[in-house]
C-alpha cells in the first residue's frame, strides 16, 4: 500500500501539486488521470522520489519514504518496477540484457538462473525470439512489453506506469492494459498508472484519482466515474462529441 498525505510540490515558486492525499491499494490497478500538464507525471515522479517534495508524506507500507536518505531509498527502489512513457530501455543493451540488468545488479543468481528468469518474464509479456534484438529494432508495443518484463524481473511489490499507452494503436494499448492488470493481480502489486486515455480508465481503472491543476478533484472506481457530479471530471471524461451524446442520451 502506498499512502500520500498532504503532498505539495512547486517548481521555482510555481505550485504544481497542492495538498494531495490519497491511498493506493495493493492488488489493484490505481489510475491517476487528468489533462496534460495537470501534474500527473510530477505526482508519479514525486511518489518514487525522482522529485523532492516541498511538504507532505509518502508512505510505502510502514515506511516514510520521503524522509529516507539516498541509500535507504535505494533499498525501497529495488522493490519498485517502473514502465516509462518512452519505455526507457537501455539503447546499448539487447532485449535479453535489458531484462537481465536488474538481476545482474541485485541478485547473486547464476547465469543460467538469470537467463531462465529473463525468458520467463519475456514469455509472460509475449515476447518470443527477440532476446538478441536491440531496442532500436523493436516496435513501440514491443518496447513497452520488454520494459514491463524488465520491471517485473525482480518481482516488485510496487509497479508504476507512466502513460503506458502513449503512441500505441488502440488494440495494442488494450493488450498493454490487460497485461498490467493481470500482472498486478498475479503478483499482488500496488500498481499506479498515469494516463489520460479513457479506454484505459474503463478497462483497468479499479481505483481512479482525477487531478486537475495540481489538485485532487475526484476519486472513485470506473463504475462511479460515469455518474460523477464533478464538472471538471465530466468535461474530461466526456470530452469528445460521441461521449457527450452518449452521456446526454443516457440521461
Amino acid at each position: 500500500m502506498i499512502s500520500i498525505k498532504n503532498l505539495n510540490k512547486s517548481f521555482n515558486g510555481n505550485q504544481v501539486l497542492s495538498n494531495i492525499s490519497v491511498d493506493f491499494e495493493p492488488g489493484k490497478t490505481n489510475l491517476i488521470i487528468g489533462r496534460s500538464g495537470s501534474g500527473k507525471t510530477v505526482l508519479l515522479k514525486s511518489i518514487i522520489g525522482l522529485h523532492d517534495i516541498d511538504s507532505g508524506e509518502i508512505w510505502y507500507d510502514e515506511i516514510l519514504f520521503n524522509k529516507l536518505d539516498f541509500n535507504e531509498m535505494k533499498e525501497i527502489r529495488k522493490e519498485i518496477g517502473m514502465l516509462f512513457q518512452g519505455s526507457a530501455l537501455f539503447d546499448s543493451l539487447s532485449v535479453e540484457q535489458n531484462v537481465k540488468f536488474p538481476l545482474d545488479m541485485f541478485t547473486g543468481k547464476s547465469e543460467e538462473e538469470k537467463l531462465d528468469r529473463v525468458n520467463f518474464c519475456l514469455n509472460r509479456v509475449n515476447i518470443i525470439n527477440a532476446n538478441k534484438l536491440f531496442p532500436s529494432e523493436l516496435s513501440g508495443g514491443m518496447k513497452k512489453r520488454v520494459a514491463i518484463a524488465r520491471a517485473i524481473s525482480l518481482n516488485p511489490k510496487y509497479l508504476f506506469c507512466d502513460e503506458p499507452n502513449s503512441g500505441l494503436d488502440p488494440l495494442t494499448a488494450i493488450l498493454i492494459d490487460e497485461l498490467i492488470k493481470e500482472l498486478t493481480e498475479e503478483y499482488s502489486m500496488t500498481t499506479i498508472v498515469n494516463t489520460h486515455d479513457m479506454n484505459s480508465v474503463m478497462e483497468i481503472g479499479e481505483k481512479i484519482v482525477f487531478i486537475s491543476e495540481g489538485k485532487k478533484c475526484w476519486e472513485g472506481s470506473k463504475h462511479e466515474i460515469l455518474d460523477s457530479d464533478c464538472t471538471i471530471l465530466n468535461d474530461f471524461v466526456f470530452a469528445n462529441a460521441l461521449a457527450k451524446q452518449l452521456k446526454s442520451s443516457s440521461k
Partner: protein
Amino acid sequence: MFRFLAQLGQYFLLLKKVFSKPEKPVIYYKQTMHELVYLGLNSVGIITIISFFMGAVITLQTAYNTENPIYPTYLIGLGCRDSILLEFSSTITALILAGKVGSNIASEIGTMRVTEQIDALEIMGVNSASYLILPKIIATLLFNPFLTLISISVGIFGGWIAGTSAGVISSEDYVYGIQYAFIPYYVTYAIIKTLFFAFIITSVSAFQGYFVEGGSLEVGRASTKAVVYSSILVLLFNVILTQLLLS
C-alpha cells in the same frame, strides 16, 4: 557568479556520487572494459594520424626557423622531441580528445537523461552517476597515458619521416637529436598532465550530459558546452601544472 558557484557545487556533489561505493564491482569492471575499447582503443586511429602530422610539421617548422650554420642540425630532432614531449602530445591530444571523447560522453549521457534511461536506473536502485561515469573516468585514466605515449612515438616518427623526406635533416642527425640530453622526467611530466586532462575531460563532459533538461536541442548544446569547457579547463590546468611540475 552565483550561477557559476552553484554549478561548481553541483559538479562536486556529482563527483561525490560518482566515487561512492559501487553496487556490484563485477558489473563496473565489465563497464570499464567496454569503455576502454569505446573511449580508448577507438581513439588510437585519430591520435596516430594527428600526431604523425604534428611531428612532421614541428620538424619542418623547427628546421626552417633555425636555418643557421652555427646551429647543429641535430637540434631539429631535439627540438621536435622536446616540443612533442613537453607540450604537444599531452595538450594537443587532450584537446582532440575533448572534442571526440568529450562530446561523445556528453551526448551519450545527455540522451540517456532525456529518454529517461537515467531515471530508470535510479528507480531500479542503481547509483546512476557512479554506474555511468565512474567506468568512463577509470577507462580514460588508464588508457589516455598510453594514447600520449603513442602520440609521442608517432609524433617523433612523423618528424623523422618529414625531416628526412624534405631533406632538412639526415636520419643520423635526427636520431642523435632525439637522444641528445634526454630528460626522462619529461615523459613522467607528460603522463601526469595526461592524467589530469583525462579526468577533466571525462568528468566535465559527463557533468554536462548528466544534468541536461529538455530534448535533442539541449543534448546538442550540452555536447558543445562539454567540448568548450573541458578545452578551456585543459588549457588552464596546462599552465598550472607546467608551473608546478617544471618550476
